[in-house]
């Protein structure tokens, strides 16, 4: 089953073209890794897929589950099952994690025509999903990401992913700023969320994360285009040889 098809996607920020014709196909059950040097457009691609207004799509199309993704507002994309794990999760002072997640879960349920979740059901769900990422339960009553350590913020992202059970998760450098133990915990969380009917795109600089979240397909993004696509062995090759040989190839 096809989940995502990107055709010739171009996107600008402030008139500067960052994505210069991306083509990508993601099917159910697959884990894709997108790697590439700094400034190649990886995070831009993630942002465009999540609907960040900062970027202007100038050309191309994105079909998600057969629907036009670019036509949806960010919140509708989320309710339809798209999830972006932020590279830099945002702090929201005064909004507790519980209230934040409850609002999110209920918006998702409403979208599906379901009644709001009951308080006890919600607490049960929270507890269960927090265990997933070994998250400290005291974090739930605290303001979203406020004063969280780098590791706590990333765990919180995966926790939110677990709560919302997306069909397509895009994890933008979820490993950055994490120590090796935290990477393992976060990766385990992600692995537990893998299902035959969903897909995950992992954006990362390093092979390290891919030791834990083993991809089916690895892409190299460079200068706004995907310049190489191969199996998981490509990641190892990149770790060893860097990106330069690919750039030359091009």
């Amino acid at each position, binding site marked *: 089953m096809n989940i995502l098809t990107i055709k010739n996607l171009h996107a600008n920020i402030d008139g500067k073209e960052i994505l210069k014709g991306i083509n990508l196909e993601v099917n159910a059950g697959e884990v894709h890794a997108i790697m590439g040097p700094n400034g190649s457009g990886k995070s831009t691609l993630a942002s465009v897929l999540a609907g960040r207004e900062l970027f202007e799509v100038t050309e191309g199309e994105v079909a998600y589950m057969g629907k036009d993704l670019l036509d949806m507002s960010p919140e509708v994309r989320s309710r339809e099952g798209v999830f972006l794990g932020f590279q830099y999760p945002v702090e929201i002072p005064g909004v507790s994690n519980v209230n934040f997640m409850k609002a999110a879960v209920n*918006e998702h349920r409403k979208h599906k025509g379901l009644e709001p979740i009951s308080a006890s059901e919600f607490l049960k769900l929270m507890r269960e999903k927090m265990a997933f990422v070994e998250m400290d339960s005291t974090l739930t009553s605290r303001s979203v990401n406020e004063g969280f350590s780098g590791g706590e913020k990333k765990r919180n992202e995966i926790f939110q992913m677990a709560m919302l059970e997306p069909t397509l998760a895009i994890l933008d450098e979820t490993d950055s700023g994490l120590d090796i133990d935290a990477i393992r915990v976060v990766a385990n969380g992600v692995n537990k969320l893998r299902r035959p009917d969903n897909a995950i795109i992992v954006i990362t600089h390093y092979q390290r994360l891919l030791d834990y979240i083993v991809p089916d397909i690895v892409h190299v993004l460079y200068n706004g285009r995907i310049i190489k696509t191969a199996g998981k062995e490509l990641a190892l090759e990149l770790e060893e040889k860097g990106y330069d040989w690919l750039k030359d190839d091009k």
Partner: protein
Amino acid sequence: MNLESSYVDLYMANMDLLREGVSDIINKHRSDAIESFNLLGIPTKKVEKYKYTNLAERFAEDFEKYFTPKHEAVDLPSLFTCDVPDFDTYKVYILNGFYYGDKKLLEENGVVFGSLAEASFKYLELFEKYYNTLADNQTEGVTALNTAFAQDGVFIYAPKSATLNKPIQIINFLLSEEDTFVQTRNLFVFEENSNVRVIICDHTLSAKRFLTNAVTEVYVAPEANIELVRMQNEHNLSTHVTSDYVQQNEKSVFISNTITLHGGMVRNNINVVLNGEYCENHTYGLFLSDKIQHVDNYANIDHAVPNCVSNELFKGVLDDKSTGAFNGGIMVRRDAQKTQAYQASNNLLLTGEARVYAKPQLEIYADDVKCSHGATVGQLDAEALFYMQSRGIGKRKAQLLQLYGFAYDVVQKVGIEALRESVAELVRKRLRGELARCENCSINCG
């Protein structure tokens, strides 16, 4: 005729009426006060402290002034259930500045509360000792005017070690068929180690212009633990000036929280003198304004002695063309070593036309202190909005969550638990736009 002389003339013409119904201890301060007022006048914007709030303009408007209680034939408690509490409080009703109710003084656990006028006869010694001792009639024209005209208000006396299990709730109603000027005077005396919570709610019940000039003196004896919460919820035709004078003595704790949900023009003056060592003062405020409302908070904390802690936090959310101001003074006197004084003012502007003026003022004459201040004026955080949207939360809802999160900092400081929930709900309602007029209000005041 200028504004000052018109008030002086009004005073002269009604002197006999003013003197009726209260004891000489209140009356003996009148002549000095009116003289002082005559010199000071009502502050214009030329007075630095009132730079952003033109009181003189409002005080010059044509208002009816009543010097005898004008109780309409209404049963207040049944007519109006204050939105704040569906919880248990000792209620005191004030109608157009005068005590409303048959039993003028109530007593619970030794704590006396009720009509100031009545108490001025019954508690002569206390009035001699405390009445008009904290109020600043020398530099504040509005306070001097209140002292000259004071007739009634609320008196609270908590004897040594007295504790009330429920808050005292003062509900100020304005209800008249005429545009009306009201001057309320409160005196609260909290003796050693007493523990009392007070809530003051302000409401307008008729679609007339109202001007309130209230003065509250609060004496906090050593080791007393007192909380004062104001819920200001008046319509757009109202002007409300409050002047609180608080004196804290050794090891006392005083928390005040001024929540302005609604009001045409509001000016709150909060003056605190930390007069004994190891005091703790918390002065908080939150205002939510829209249309052309104007809310100005002035707070001055005077660290007169060493080893005290004060903490000020004021927040404002301004919509439409509303305006706001915060003027926060901290004075640390030369001997007030080991002072810790913190102050912050944070404001959110929801439109390009809303304005807020934040002015922190620290004067520090001691050299071993910890002080900080900060003022921010900003908009909703676009990154946070996107973050919430990316989790499925609609834009409007995401904005509300953020606004409420912003306000929550102050709401959570309300110590009275049951009240905190009500305040939270009212703030949420106000932010959702459901409180475009005061709760339970059937009048349409625009």
